[in-house]
Each structure stands twice: as structure tokens, then as C-alpha cells.
């Protein structure tokens, strides 16, 4: 029984087939050692941050103890303490968790909105397309960073969820535009027409037939957006318009460096967070570039 199965399996294997999407991506990563290293370190860092942060009690962590003010790295605090005597390492882990959660949620949310709107407008064209493109033009012309800052100051009681929503309102337009332009050309292809002649409904065509054909573009767009969103969140928190002070984030940790005294004498307050941001951004970008190359046959290394 097992034998025949093995023979069947080997028969299947012999039918040579060109590599599928994931095989191409895997091959690209095998070829590009830097991207492979980035991918592995990303997985390890993100994984350990989430597991570790899950075991830390945030209220306990943020309790001020003046006796430990600006304690140097040592036995009690591996990475020292800040002005309020709070453990930097704990803040780093929880802060990274918060920053990543925000970046991931914003990426998924804007990705979802952008893809749906982009596909629908690109497919139907006509007045639907016109209306949405004007809305998108409007969002692009207004200075979104300023408006996010204004929103954050106006909204009385905000938490991670509201922050995610405020960011998402302004960030879906880029994805929508990219997807729409590709959907526009894809929807005029013959196989879409062929499917129409079978009596397939419009929305089935859009999401079951057209979307898989744009998947490579989607993956690239989402990965690069992710890096951008990490940067945007930490930037806002650095400026003091991100998360509330009681919630640590990578940006708030880096912003300790705005105090010249800490900048000079307590490097352990801001350097680890800055390095972590650097590592995350570089790694995400290298991974994103490798995926982008694998989506474009002319640029592939593997």
C-alpha cells in the first residue's frame, strides 16, 4: 500500500511544473543571504517580544520609584532605569510590542480598505472610479501628519485602538491608488471577459479572480507599508503625539534623548530603543525588497 503511494507521489513529481508564487519567494530568500538573515531575525525578535511582553505587568512596570532614578545597567535593571526609576528593558519590550501592534493593525486595516476600494473602483471604472479618485485626491493633498496630531490633541481619552483608527483614516489612500491602477488594466483582460460570458457576478470576479492575480503586488505593498507605519508611529510618539505617557512605546523611549542631560549621561535610556527601531526598519525593508524582486521576474536573483 505504502509502496504504491510512493510510486504515485514520484509520478506526480515528474510532471515538471514552473515554480509557484511561494516557491519563487523562497528561492529569492535562499539566494539573498541578507534578506534571509533579516527574515529570521524579524521572526525571532517579534516572536520573543510578544511572548516576553505578555508576561510583564504594565502597571507594575510603570510605577515610579525615585530611589532607582537613572540607575545604571546592572544586577537589578539589566538596561538601567529612567528618570522615574522604571525598568528600561521592560519598557523596551512592552513599547516594542505596542509599536508593532499598532503598525501591524494599521497595515492590515489600511490594506483591507485600500484593496477593497482599489479593486472595486478599478473594476467598475466610470463614475464610481471618479468619485473615489476625487476623495483620494482630497486625502493626498491635505497634510495628514498635521491632522493626525490635531486629532490626537482633540480626542479627550485615547488608547491604542483610537490611535490605530486615526492613523488608518489617512493611510489607506496610497494602497487604494496602487491597487486601482493595476485593477484597471487587469479588469480589461480577456479572462475577465471570458468569466463574464459564463454569467459570473461582478463581485465574484473581483475577489475570486482578479484579486489572486494582484497578490504579488499586494504582498509587496503591505510589507513596505508595515515598515513605514512602524516609522510613523514611533515618530509621532517621539514628538509626544502618539500613545499616552502611561503606555510605553519605542518612540517615547527615544524621546528621552530630547533631555540633554540624559542624552549625555544616561545612554541606556534611549540607545536600545533607537537600535531596535533601526534593526526593525532595516530588516523589514530587506525582506520587502526581496519579495518585491521575486514579484518581478526581471529583477530576480534566484
Amino acid at each position, binding site marked *: 500500500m505504502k509502496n504504491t503511494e510512493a510510486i504515485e507521489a514520484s509520478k506526480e513529481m515528474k510532471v515538471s511544473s514552473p515554480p509557484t508564487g511561494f516557491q519563487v519567494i523562497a528561492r529569492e530568500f535562499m539566494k539573498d543571504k541578507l534578506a534571509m538573515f533579516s527574515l529570521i531575525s524579524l521572526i525571532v525578535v517579534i516572536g520573543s517580544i510578544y511572548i516576553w511582553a505578555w508576561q510583564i505587568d504594565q502597571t507594575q512596570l510603570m510605577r515610579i520609584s525615585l530611589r532607582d532614578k537613572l540607575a545604571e545597567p546592572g544586577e537589578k535593571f539589566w538596561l538601567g532605569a529612567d528618570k522615574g526609576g522604571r525598568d528600561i528593558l521592560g519598557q523596551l519590550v512592552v513599547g516594542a510590542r505596542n509599536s508593532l501592534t499598532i503598525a501591524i493593525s494599521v497595515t492590515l486595516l489600511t490594506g483591507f480598505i485600500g484593496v477593497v476600494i482599489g479593486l472595486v473602483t478599478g473594476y467598475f471604472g466610470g463614475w464610481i472610479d471618479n468619485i473615489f479618485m476625487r476623495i483620494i485626491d482630497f486625502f493626498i493633498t491635505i497634510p495628514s501628519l498635521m491632522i493626525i496630531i490635531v486629532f490626537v490633541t482633540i480626542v479627550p481619552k485615547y488608547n491604542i485602538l483610537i490611535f490605530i483608527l486615526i492613523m488608518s483614516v489617512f493611510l489607506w489612500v496610497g494602497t487604494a491608488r496602487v491597487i486601482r491602477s493595476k485593477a484597471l488594466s487587469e479588469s480589461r483582460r*480577456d479572462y475577465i471577459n471570458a468569466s463574464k460570458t459564463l*454569467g459570473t457576478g461582478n463581485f465574484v470576479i473581483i475577489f475570486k479572480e482578479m484579486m489572486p492575480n494582484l497578490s504579488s503586488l499586494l504582498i509587496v505593498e503591505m510589507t513596505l507599508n508595515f515598515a513605514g507605519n512602524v516609522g510613523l508611529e514611533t515618530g509621532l510618539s517621539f514628538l509626544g503625539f502618539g500613545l499616552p505617557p502611561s503606555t510605553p512605546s519605542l518612540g517615547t523611549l527615544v524621546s528621552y534623548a530630547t533631555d540633554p542631560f540624559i542624552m549625555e549621561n544616561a545612554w541606556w535610556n534611549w540607545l536600545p530603543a533607537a537600535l531596535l527601531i533601526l534593526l526593525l526598519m532595516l530588516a523589514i525593508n530587506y525582506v520587502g525588497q526581496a519579495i518585491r524582486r521575486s514579484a518581478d521576474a526581471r529583477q530576480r536573483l534566484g
Partner: protein
Amino acid sequence: MNNLDQLLTINDLHTGFRIKDTYYDAVDGVSLTLRRNEILAVVGESGCGKSTLATSIIGLYDHNKTRVQGEILYNGENLALLKEDKLNDVRGEEIGMIFQDPLSALNPLMRIGEQIEEGLVYHTKMSKQERNTRVLELLKQVGIPNPDRIAKQFPHQLSGGMRQRVIIAIAISCKPNIIIADEPTTALDVTIQAQILDLLKELQNETGAGIVLITHDLGVVAETADRVVVMYAGQIIEEAPVDELFANPRHPYTRSLLNSIPQMNSENEKLQVIQGMVPSLVKLPRVGCRFADRIPWIPAEAHEENPTLHEVSPGHLVRCTCWQHFHFESEKGGNPL
């Protein structure tokens, strides 16, 4: 012939495209009928409105830029007036379509089996199991070896001929009464062409469907069609049973077309060509004989002022009167006025 035999009746169909706020008719007053168990060939040069005719029937045009007027009667319903969702019930189930380029007409990311299954999902109440059986049956019917293996493959893994067979399998999956084949053999090489045409004829014999075969290849017409409609500049200029058309072509355009096919036993080294080009939509004169410009040696008096179709023998219709006085430029003669 009785009325029951008529599958599809088109009355005075005008399909116009909008160019700078004016509609220009690419199909200009076409009337024809398709009967059960018949292959009706629509022949003409590029840009004469053949494909527009096909897309009008199945409603596959850009609704923002196209205007369709006239009647396309199927089962007592005017397809030209149907709303999109009603039309979706007809598409696939009653009318199947075969496309010109078999690669671009298949979704590159869906397995062959799934693509054939699609129509069955919308139009039948078959279970998953029954659909699978039907898919394999269809693949076998269109002459694909190893149907169960092919059903799991992707379009790029098949050859051109196989892909076109798959397209045909998709088109006939719900046993439609009408099949519209828009240049089904253009993208294929000659040996495969013959196989595909044989397959079409065979399927038609089995199912009794009416086929509208759109082509510019007169060889294909002679081999497969029962009746032929010759189109020029959006109008039907000649309609006849296939034997009659090849034996007694009347209209100058039909004769020129036939004359321009290279003959195997001909000693003429130069190919015969038709002067000029099909006039563009915008510049097309909408009065008089539309072919007059391309046979300038025929005096203007030979043409009708408003050319209509005349029945010259049973079932053989010719537009305009100029055919009576037509002769090729190289030869003398033709009936004097």
C-alpha cells in the same frame, strides 16, 4: 423552415461607440437569424464590425461608451434591453462564448478544472461530486487526454491547442443553445486549426446548438459553415448558403475577398489586393454604397443611392446594385450600364 428553428433573431442592430460625445455606429443596421443546428459564419476584414456584433449579442461591451439599439431576440426576450443580472442568467447557460486568444481568456491563477466548473456552479444545482464528474466528461468530450491530470493543472502548463479545447469545454459546459466563436482559430497553427474546427462541428452535431463563427479566414468558412454573412463597414453586404457564396459570389467586396486568396495553381506571382482600407468609424460616409471608394473604376451610376439588400436567388441576399456592373480593374468587361 419554421419559426421554431430560429434560435436567435437580430433586427436592425446598431451598436455605436462614443467618440468625443458623438456615437458612431460600428454595427450599422444588421439583421440576421441563427437557426438551430447551423453554423453561421460572419466574415469580413479587420474593423468591419464582426467582433462588435458578437460582444453586442452577449452584452460584453463597455456600458459607458457604447450604445446598443435594435432587437436581439432570443426566446422572445430582447437581450439588448436586459439588465446585467438578468443577462447573467442567459450568459453561460444559453449562450456560450469562445475567445480568440486561448491564453489570455483563461485565468492564469485558477486550475483548469475550477475554471470549467465555474459555469456549472452558477447555472446548475449539481453537487460538488457531480460537477467534478461533469468536468472530466467535458474534458474528454473536447478530446483532452488524461482529463483528471489536466483538470489539476494551470493554463500555462498546456499547449495552445489544449487551451483552446479547454475554452471550448468551458463554453459548452452548460449545454448552451448558442455558441459564439470569435475567431477561435486565429491564434493557433494550421494543423491545430483543423482539429479545433472538426471538434466544433462534432460538438454541434451532438448538441444541436447554433454556432456564430466569426472569422476573416475564408478557408475556415468553406470548411465549416452552413451559411455565410459577409460584413463590410458595419453592414451586411452579402448573405448566402456557403456553397452558393463560393460558387456565385455577387457583391464586389465578396468577389475581391475571394480573389485575394492565393491560388495553388495560379501562375500570377503577385497577390491580388483590395485597394485602400476599411474607412475609420468617424470618417465613414453614411450614405451610398460603402464599398464604392475602393472600386473607383466602377462608375458612380452603378451604385444605388440608398443600397438595400436584394434577394438574387433563394437565400442569397446582396446589398447595392453595383455587383451587376462589377469587373476587376485588371479585366475588361462587366455589364455596361
